[in-house]
């Protein structure tokens, strides 16, 4: 295509005049249109992190267990002992899901799974972290449609490929209306010696293309993901890709078989920016060059130009660099799995990414500069906003202290708030039992998965309270990490590493960039304190709907190890007569709480403050009593505070348990006592015979221990506080909590 490179064309590619000058500098000439396209995707935020790299560098990435660091490869790799390792990562598919929820979410799952098996790991489980606008009422119809579509898209892809989806989170808030967040996590298992590299090593080695034929899918999707979501984006038709989980299943099995056969020199998935990204990244990592011929690429459509072929985002494709002489084995394996494949080029020594169409050279760019010399921008951050009030008096100024009926109603409103209500409607649609590893099913603090091949128990969770992050991004981010670690501790696990997904608005707006920076610094600091290096993740900026930027959402995915099956602990109360303890005190911080949001419709105040020493002491204490086999359940206090945590303990398993508790006198208002969200707190239940021992042990460890009462046969939750005795029928609580989402979603099948 001899379109000449006008300023308009350059701008249409999202390339600034400065960037264009830089391109001419690198090439020593003007780029042709195809080359311009290649630069535009490689230098988009999605691929180059040009707006976030300086921030990402703040993350701790070192650690005794780290085998492959963040950024080195598609995903980090972490040692779990006995020669085994895990590769895991989180990725976002926010914008595609806004346009076509089912396929957008499905292809997101496909993408993260490829990132994992590209490392030579067998994917063993997935999780997902989702955000939508409010799904209630007339106004919620669009959000319900998006929610239903995203969930069935994730189910469709994950269930079909046979990788269990064992956990995740879903929050609803109107800041996400029209711009849902779809962050998907996948973890794979491998032997240390099985780590595969995405490098084009070995000059003269043939380069194979395998997987789905290339079509005009998602042209410029990477660029698309790096722009604001506007009304026009709905017209961005080509950006929608359709996933084929069946193909991916064949690709997954074939690639693992191929890697095991020892004939692979390098391997790289084709994610965003497809063929472009994979050729130039492998060349750049290998310090070599790669030459491919677009005429050899398997195609789904006729008349495709090199530009279209290079920028296509067709799914379920991989680039494999094969050790010369072993081509036959490769062909045999791909044919066994009925996969389209072709030898499309070879590794060169000249450092160029060179693309030919037949004989004619259409792209010739120094690979390293293309991959690594994207401009880096340090955007201006707005000056720090004034801190929000944190003192109870100011926050509750116009809120009368509730009487008994009001307190009864408040707990119901909290439990039936979609963000707190049971997510069974979601995880019931996910096959979470395939592969026979789900030792703790969805619905407890963390998912626990038994990796049979390695004989290891892994615990995993995703967390982020975006209201906290909105009110104070740094503190909110710290709490996201702390809560993840707390969830793992409650399950009996020791955290080993973190992946994160940074979801923010347009970074050109100083207030958004401030949120990004503050969040990253908060995450980084907390990850250092909890000794969980960041193994990788993803940045999604430009999450704006016409209504404005989303609440800042730095999602944390954390993985931990559980030493023995016997240590696996869940949140639900087990037996009548067991004694209930609250660890970490009654707390008092009501700012940014779900009580203010769900009951009084206010997002305001400073989030609770995190005290690392207190938090870490709690985790160590929890693990200690768990290892001693002294406790029967553990659950952390988060959204909705003590009262919601108590209710969840009694209703979150099939067998509903009652509880009778008495809260010691306190100077705080009853609503503050019941619903404050002060951090570093957990509820545990203990067999009567061990109660004294546990109490002594924990206090000796300096934990603030309160004996609240006991689990009861009679299915009633009874709380005595400040002279009031409030009681709820546990079955009623269970239905307000358990049926809310199903009822709201009645009639929405998602596909």
């Amino acid at each position, binding site marked *: 295509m001899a379109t000449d490179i006008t300023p308009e064309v350059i701008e249409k590619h999202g390339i600034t005049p400065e960037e264009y000058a830089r391109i001419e500098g690198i090439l020593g000439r003007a780029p042709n249109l195809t080359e311009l396209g290649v630069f535009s995707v490689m230098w988009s935020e999605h691929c180059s992190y040009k707006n976030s790299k300086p921030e990402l560098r703040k993350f701790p990435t070192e650690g005794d267990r780290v085998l492959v660091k963040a950024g080195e490869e598609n995903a980090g790799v972490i040692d779990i002992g006995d020669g085994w390792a895990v590769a895991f990562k989180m990725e976002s598919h926010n914008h595609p899901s806004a*346009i*076509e929820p089912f*396929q957008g979410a499905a292809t997101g799952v496909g993408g993260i799974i490829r990132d994992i098996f590209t490392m030579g790991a067998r994917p063993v489980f997935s999780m997902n972290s989702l955000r939508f606008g409010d799904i209630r009422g007339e106004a919620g119809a669009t959000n319900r449609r998006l929610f239903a579509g995203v969930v069935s898209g994730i189910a469709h892809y994950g269930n079909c490929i046979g990788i269990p989806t064992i956990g995740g989170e879903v929050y609803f808030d109107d800041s996400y209306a029209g711009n849902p967040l779809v962050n998907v996590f996948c973890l794979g298992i491998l032997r240390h010696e099985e780590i595969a590299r995405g490098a084009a090593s070995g000059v003269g080695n043939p380069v194979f293309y395998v997987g*789905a034929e290339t*079509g*005009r*899918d998602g042209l410029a999707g990477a660029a698309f993901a790096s722009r604001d979501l506007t009304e026009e984006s*709905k017209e961005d*038709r*080509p950006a*929608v*890709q*359709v996933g*084929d989980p*069946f*193909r991916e299943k064949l690709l997954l099995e074939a690639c693992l078989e191929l890697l095991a056969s020892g004939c692979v020199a390098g391997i790289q998935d084709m994610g965003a920016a497809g063929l472009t990204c994979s050729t130039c990244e492998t060349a750049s990592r290998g310090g070599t060059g790669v030459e491919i011929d677009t005429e050899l690429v398997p195609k*789904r*459509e006729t008349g495709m130009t090199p530009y279209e072929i290079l920028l296509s985002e*067709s*799914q379920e494709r991989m680039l494999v660099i094969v050790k010369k002489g072993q081509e036959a084995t490769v062909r045999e394996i791909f044919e066994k799995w009925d996969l389209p494949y072709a030898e499309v080029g070879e590794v060169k020594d000249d450092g160029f990414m060179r693309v030919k169409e037949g004989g004619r050279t259409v792209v010739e760019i120094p690979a390293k500069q293309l991959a690594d010399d994207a401009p880096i921008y340090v955007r201006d951050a707005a000056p720090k906003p004034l801190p929000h009030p944190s003192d109870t008096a100011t926050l509750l100024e116009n809120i009368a202290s509730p009487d008994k009926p009001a307190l009864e109603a408040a707990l119901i409103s909290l439990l039936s708030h979609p963000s707190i209500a049971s997510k069974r409607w979601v995880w019931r649609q996910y096959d979470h039992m395939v592969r026979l590893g789900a030792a703790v099913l969805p619905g407890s603090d963390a998912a626990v998965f038994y990796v049979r091949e390695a004989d290891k128990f892994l615990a995993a969770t995703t967390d982020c309270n975006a209201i906290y992050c909105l009110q104070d991004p740094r503190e909110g981010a710290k709490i996201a990490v702390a809560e993840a670690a707390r969830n793992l501790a409650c399950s009996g696990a020791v955290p080993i590493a973190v992946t994160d997904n940074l979801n923010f608005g347009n970074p050109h707006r100083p207030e958004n960039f401030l949120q990004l920076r503050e969040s990253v610094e908060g995450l980084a600091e907390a990850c250092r304190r909890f000794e969980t290096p960041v193994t990788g993740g993803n940045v999604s900026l430009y999450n704006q709907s016409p209504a404005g930027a989303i609440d800042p959402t730095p999602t944390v995915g954390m993985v931990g190890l559980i030493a023995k099956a016997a240590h696996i602990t869940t949140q639900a109360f087990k037996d009548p007569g067991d004694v209930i303890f609250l660890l970490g005190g009654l707390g008092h911080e009501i700012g940014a709480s779900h009580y203010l949001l769900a009951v009084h419709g206010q997002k305001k105040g400073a989030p609770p403050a995190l005290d690392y020493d207190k938090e870490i002491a709690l985790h160590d204490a929890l693990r200690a009593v768990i290892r001693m086999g002294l406790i029967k359940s553990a659950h952390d206090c988060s959204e909705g505070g003590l009262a919601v945590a108590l209710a969840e303990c009694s209703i979150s398993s099939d067998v509903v348990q009652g509880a009778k508790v008495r809260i010691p006198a306190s100077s705080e208002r009853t609503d503050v006592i019941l619903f404050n969200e002060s951090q570093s707190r957990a509820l545990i239940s203990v067999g009567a015979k061990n109660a004294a021992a546990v109490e002594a042990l924990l206090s000796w460890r300096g934990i603030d221990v309160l004996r609240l009462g006991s689990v009861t046969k009679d299915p009633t939750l009874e709380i005595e506080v400040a002279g009031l005795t409030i009681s709820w029928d546990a079955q009623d609580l269970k239905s307000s909590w358990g049926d809310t989402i199903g009822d709201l979603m009645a009639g929405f099948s998602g596909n």
Partner: protein
Amino acid sequence: MAKVVVTVIPKPSVLDPQGAATAEAMKHSGLTGVGRVRVGKSIEIEFDEAPDRAKLEEVARDLLSNPVIEDYRIEG
């Protein structure tokens, strides 16, 4: 009583794995000359009275199909 059939079919440019799989299977069962196959939905709607055409058009576009990946046609 009117009967209307809305056919929803994946856009030509959009990947249709189901269509591809079906084409393969048809070839294997010995049918020759099979080219491209696309699998879509056929939605048969009975109406008590003749439907409001404009409304029907709107429903076919916004509810029964997804304009981002599918085309539709209304018969009857």
